[in-house]
């Protein structure tokens, strides 16, 4: 009897840890430990040369970081270009796809004909695999038979080399991303709009506020939180969505449209530059961590305020 009660208490003590163990172990193995190892491995250079096999990596302190930040180093050129492109890519997404998502939500939040068709039309890109979406667009952008150039030529303009011209590839990649993400961002705004009480609009209309004034003084302030949230996630997502490059010029001529994570992927796939890959990954982690942590604290705190 006493033994039974003791066993019961022991089980109750251990049980919570057993329940969370699988998740905890997996997170430690595939998120926490890898992040720590990234820091460590970014300080080493793999042995090179004919007799390199079996030799231990060499501790080089911050040399890998010095190299990837060095404009005259071949890896530095690649990294700096890709990092700059990633920033442009992320800012363009925030500045165009997010407002477009808001516009779509405003348009589709009203009763109208064919509502289901239009909702499908703007949301299906979000469902497609990035690489599938990109393969569609690789055809649209293709030089001789693509839709983009067909439109340009019908307007009397010369066709453009969308995926081959180093001044143009990044723009093409950005266009695809806007098309892909706007519908996804829209659903956050739709959810936000549906939380605004109808009575507020009726009161505003009684006070003589027109549609645009209602948007400016009522909708926009009430959607402020959603707007901030969507902007932050769209910025961090931009650092993680790179698979489209596989079908859209693979980073463009001389990395003119390469993105950071894709550069890392290329180097892993080619089994190269272990130390550099880790140094670049650490930069990527730092950016993503800063923004997701900021987002989390910002919104967790305001959740608690309510």
């Amino acid at each position, binding site marked *: 009897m006493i033994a039974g009660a003791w066993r019961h208490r022991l089980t109750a003590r251990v*049980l*919570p840890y*057993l*329940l*969370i163990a*699988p*998740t*905890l172990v*997996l*997170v430690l*193995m*595939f*998120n*926490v*430990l*890898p*992040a720590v190892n*990234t820091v460590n491995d970014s300080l080493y250079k793999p042995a090179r040369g004919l007799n390199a096999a079996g030799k231990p990596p060499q501790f080089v302190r911050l040399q890998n970081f010095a190299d990837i930040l060095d404009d005259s180093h071949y890896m530095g050129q690649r990294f700096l270009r890709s990092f700059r492109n990633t920033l442009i890519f992320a800012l363009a997404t925030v500045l165009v796809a997010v407002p477009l998502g808001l516009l779509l939500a405003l348009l589709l939040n009203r009763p*109208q004909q*064919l509502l*289901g068709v239009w909702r*499908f*039309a*703007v949301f*299906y890109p*979000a*469902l*497609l*695999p*990035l*690489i*599938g979406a990109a*393969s*569609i667009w*690789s*055809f*649209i952008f*293709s030089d001789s*038979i693509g*839709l983009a150039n067909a439109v340009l030529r019908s307007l009397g303009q010369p066709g453009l080399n969308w995926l081959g011209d180093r001044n143009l590839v990044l723009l093409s990649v950005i266009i695809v991303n806007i*098309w892909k993400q706007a519908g996804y961002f829209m*659903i*956050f705004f739709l959810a936000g709009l549906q939380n605004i009480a109808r009575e507020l609009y009726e009161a505003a209309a009684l006070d003589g506020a*027109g549609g645009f004034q209602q948007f400016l003084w009522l909708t926009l302030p009430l959607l402020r939180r959603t707007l901030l949230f969507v902007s932050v996630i769209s910025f961090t997502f931009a650092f*993680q969505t790179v*698979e489209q490059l*596989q*079908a859209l010029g693979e980073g463009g001529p001389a990395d003119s449209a390469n993105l950071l*994570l894709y550069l*890392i*992927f290329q180097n*892993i*796939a080619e089994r190269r530059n272990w130390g550099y890959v880790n140094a670049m*990954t650490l930069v*990527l982690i730092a950016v*993503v*961590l800063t923004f*997701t*942590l900021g987002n*989390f604290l910002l919104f967790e705190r305001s959740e608690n305020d309510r």
Partner: protein
Amino acid sequence: MTRKSGVAQAVATVLTATIGLVFLLPLVFTILVSIRPENEPVTQGSIFFGSEITLSLYQHALNIAPWGLHYFNSIIFVGGTLLVQLFTVTCAAYAFARLRFWGRNLLLVVILLQLMIPSGVLLVQNFRMINLLGLFDTRLALMLPYWGSAFGMLLLRQAFREVPIELEEAARIDGANLLQVIRHVYVVNAIPAYVAFALVSLSSHWNEFLWPFIITRSEEIRPLTVGLNKLIKTTDQGAFYGQLMAGTIIVITPLVILFLLFQRQFVESFARSGIR
């Protein structure tokens, strides 16, 4: 006043239709090209359907990659990932929603680190980890990093907390053990959260490319996206876009159908996925 709002209404309608059509264009174009005869310019025959409607491009696409096999692999990948996730996530969510134990908040924060350092950016170290475990080029390697899900755990913890504690107490008095309590009290009352999590998990893994590409080498276990990549690379070498469009349709059709069937659930579950 009415006339002004009538104009506004008309502008909104035209704007919606214009954006909607522009967004639809790539899909429509893809479908049309995929049913044209091979290598036929758009200027030939009917502008929409070419000189005839044919499935020959699908035949070509089928010859380049074993799509049946890739379909099977994708289904095993996303299904196997989801099944184990449902188990791990349910256990952890129950513990964090209802049990008190030493170190609870700290352990919760550790698990939430997954949201801040997503697996996607840890390609290089996860590649190394899988190699250390001797799992390179196995189905297990594809799924293992995703078997723990902080996103799913958060979603379900929230749902479990909304279940009245009295229901659990009543079940306990009736002699239910832990497993029965979780199943009959919590799981059945959190179905919408499970649906949301399942749709997000299924669609994100179905669409994944970088990880499967890096961690596998054998065609026998590679998913659809990697098969599509092969077609893209063949197109690069001068083959024609028609078969690539056919291959793309082959890859995206299941998700589009799933979406048409569960449109509302999809939109709702994606709306919750922002914390991913």
